């Protein structure tokens, strides 16, 4: 069974499709892995092995009957717990939604089911996806499989740790400012934020609607590409869903060619002030690309200096509005404050108990940014900065096909290091946030290990809107180049976890 869980999703799909192994066997192997390691890693908030195995048996039946549902048919997957699932609780990492079972499936979940992919469980996240470490999950943090004393990234640390600890070959994440890419970088896995609108957000518990995007989490680039092909596409239920198809990501990931491609190094994110090992590996990758016939150019994005500030005004503003729906009336928790329990007092008491500190902080900050007297200098100004950032990207993409930077300034930090300092936590997102503000796609690909701590680092690739395929083409090439240098996949350097 050990060899099954270490296989990639594309390998598993081929084995299942040829009948060499069944989806039930593959699914059971991953469930057994969770039994062995998840007490230590804590990737999952919820699992129902029975439901997973029923879905796997159905995938096997369909295959035997000659019905082909998708290239990933039978391959099991984990889903971040901010996506609505009709057959499983959906908490978004918050006490206020504990035990809530949605009356519908998110569009992405529907697509996974239609693709014949058994769902292994719901993965942990910072409460309402606000955080970079999972330390703000109301149900306790997930651990980094490379070092259990370190964070697995956030908000999607459940999804990154679940694939990095071989409990699932694939997972779904959501990325508002880096919540797919940062966890990917610090766990030696791959994560993509597709172009805004490429994947339907219907059924995603909204954090900041103009920034949120659902995307794939995987152990290699091809698997991520195959998953994006399954979950992408227009959805009439999401008014911001792109009407057009972006083409085959799988085909792009198989090209393995970067000759003649122009890579733009963003001056403001070129590694200055980053952890030395992160910056060193980044420079090595630039050399690899140049040696393979790619062109390396420098691009200047002066407005990026304001990106974090703009983001931490726009996000809280949108979140304060989105989270107003947790009003103790239609779903979730209700706390009665005793006598004179008017609806307003019940609401305030419920939100006091139901929300954690980071959520309260951001709602109050967002309320402040939107309040009269502050609007122009905060929220209004942030929306204008957003235009400047888009202009910087437009100018940069006139000179380069792909922009590159380290995904994050450091490798995985220790639990507790930044929990009491919100600003330090926010600075992790310095390289990932601009893409969300501009709606463009980005991927984090494993980029070797930092010399000083032996932990994985990521390289981020960014492309113009709708050009997600470029990320998979260049990402797969870089991944292969690294495997040739290091002799094996990055994830295979992760220490063995103790099993129960």
């Amino acid at each position, binding site marked *: 069974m050990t060899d099954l869980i270490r296989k990639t999703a594309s390998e598993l799909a081929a084995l299942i499709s040829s009948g060499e192994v069944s989806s039930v066997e593959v699914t059971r192997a991953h469930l057994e892995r969770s039994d062995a390691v998840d007490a230590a890693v804590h990737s999952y908030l919820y699992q129902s092995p029975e439901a997973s195995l029923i879905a796997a048996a159905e995938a096997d039946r369909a295959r035997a009957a000659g019905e082909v549902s998708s290239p990933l048919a039978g391959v099991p997957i984990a889903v971040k717990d901010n996506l609505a699932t009709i057959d499983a609780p959906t908490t978004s990492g918050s006490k206020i939604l504990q035990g809530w*079972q949605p*009356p*519908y499936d998110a569009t992405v979940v529907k697509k996974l089911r239609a693709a014949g992919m058994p769902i292994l469980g719901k993965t942990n996240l910072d409460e309402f996806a606000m955080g970079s470490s999972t330390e703000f999950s109301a149900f306790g943090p997930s651990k980094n499989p490379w070092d259990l004393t370190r964070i697995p990234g956030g908000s999607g640390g459940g999804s990154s740790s679940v694939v990095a600890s071989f409990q699932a070959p694939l997972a779904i994440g959501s990325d508002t400012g880096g919540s797919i890419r940062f966890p990917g970088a610090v766990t030696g896995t791959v994560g993509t934020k597709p172009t*805004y*609108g490429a994947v339907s957000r219907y059924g995603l518990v909204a954090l900041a609607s*103009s920034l949120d995007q659902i995307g794939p989490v995987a152990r290699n680039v091809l698997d991520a590409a195959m998953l994006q092909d399954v979950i992408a596409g227009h959805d*009439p239920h999401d*008014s*911001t869903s*792109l*009407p057009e198809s972006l083409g085959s990501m799988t085909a792009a990931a198989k090209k393995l060619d970067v000759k003649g491609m122009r890579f733009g190094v963003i001056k403001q994110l070129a590694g200055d002030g980053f952890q030395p090992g992160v910056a060193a590996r980044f420079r090595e990758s630039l050399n690899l690309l140049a040696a393979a016939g790619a062109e390396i150019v420098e691009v200047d994005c002066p407005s990026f200096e*304001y990106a*974090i*500030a*703009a983001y*931490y*005004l726009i996000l809280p503003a949108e979140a304060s509005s989105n989270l*107003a729906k947790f*009003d*103790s*009336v*239609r*779903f*979730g928790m*209700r706390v*009665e404050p005793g006598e*004179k*329990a*008017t*609806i307003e*007092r*019940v*609401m*305030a*008491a419920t*939100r*006091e108990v139901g929300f954690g500190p980071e959520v*309260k*902080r951001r*709602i*109050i*900050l967002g309320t*402040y940014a939107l*309040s009269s007297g502050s609007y122009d*200098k*905060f929220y209004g*100004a*942030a*929306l*204008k*900065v*957003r235009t*400047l950032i888009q202009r910087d990207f437009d100018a940069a993409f006139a000179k380069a096909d792909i922009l590159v930077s380290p995904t994050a300034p450091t490798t995985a930090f220790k639990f507790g290091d930044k929990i009491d300092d*919100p*600003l330090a936590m*926010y600075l992790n997102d310095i390289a990932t946030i601009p893409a969300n*503000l501009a*709606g*463009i796609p980005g991927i984090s690909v494993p980029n070797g290990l930092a010399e000083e701590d032996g932990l994985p680092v990521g390289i981020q690739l960014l492309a113009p*809107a709708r050009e997600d395929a470029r990320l998979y083409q260049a990402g797969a090439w870089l991944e292969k180049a690294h495997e040739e240098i290091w002799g094996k996949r990055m994830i295979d350097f992760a220490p063995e976890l103790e099993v129960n």
Partner: protein
Amino acid sequence: MSEITPELVRHLAGLARILVSDEEVEQFTKQLSVIADSVAHVSKAIDADTPSTSHPIAMANVFREDVVEPSLSQAEALSGAPDSADGRFKVNAILDEE
């Protein structure tokens, strides 16, 4: 310097319908002051002529055909409610009795 005061934090929390303890007010005042100071420079980057962007990808509004599609039943829509009665969401008194 930031204008975030304990009174302002209490006021904003009230607007956002979140009860906050004295301890939280003290903590949030400190933390939000630091955050507000650190984001205040956004207004330096722009001028009056800079257009705003509220949505990252330019899109036209879309309408769907006006046809009836399956939707949640009343029971399904009420399934997550903390309290319901007679097919409706049940809530506490809207007005104070005094």
